[in-house]
């Protein structure tokens, strides 16, 4: 609040207004990306882990889902790192 008041008094109210909206949009965008990622994870982890739907997710399925997310991120990191090493070795970058 005091921040926007300061810029208001220095005649920069337009810029501070944009800033608040920009920050808001950035946060919302991050939240939307997080959600999109969960949709994607749930899509393929469901296929990998869930058999016939029953009254509740059994503990084996729950473990599988949790592991599925973590291992996918591991693979993603591993491939990213190895790929950048390969790029460096080939002198391309």
């Amino acid at each position, binding site marked *: 609040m005091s921040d926007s008041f300061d810029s208001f008094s220095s005649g920069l109210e337009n810029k501070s207004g944009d800033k608040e909206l920009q920050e808001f949009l950035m946060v919302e965008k991050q939240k939307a990306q997080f959600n999109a990622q969960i949709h994607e994870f*749930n899509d393929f*982890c469901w*296929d990998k*882990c869930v058999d016939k739907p*029953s009254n509740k997710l059994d503990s084996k399925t729950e473990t599988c*889902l949790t592991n599925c*997310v973590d291992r996918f991120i591991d693979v993603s990191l591993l491939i990213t790192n190895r790929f950048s090493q390969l790029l460096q070795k080939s002198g391309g970058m």
Partner: protein
Amino acid sequence: MENLSALTGAQKDELMDQVKQQIAVANAQELLTKMTEKCFKKCISKPGTSLDSSEQKCVAMCMDRYMDSWNLVSKAYSLRIQRERNHM
């Protein structure tokens, strides 16, 4: 962006609410599409002339489990993000 700076506080609040609402709708639509696709695949092996009661029961259960799974995946992903942040 020029005319955005002329917004009053109330207009800005309204705009933010609208953005939030649109994101929520898009999110719900995505979930709905995915659930329909996944539960159709799981529950209807051979499409008949109507949805029989066991198929309907299966779809209802599948929906609930898909949302359970979504929440579980969401939890696992946020925990992982937290862990990665602590490592930095």
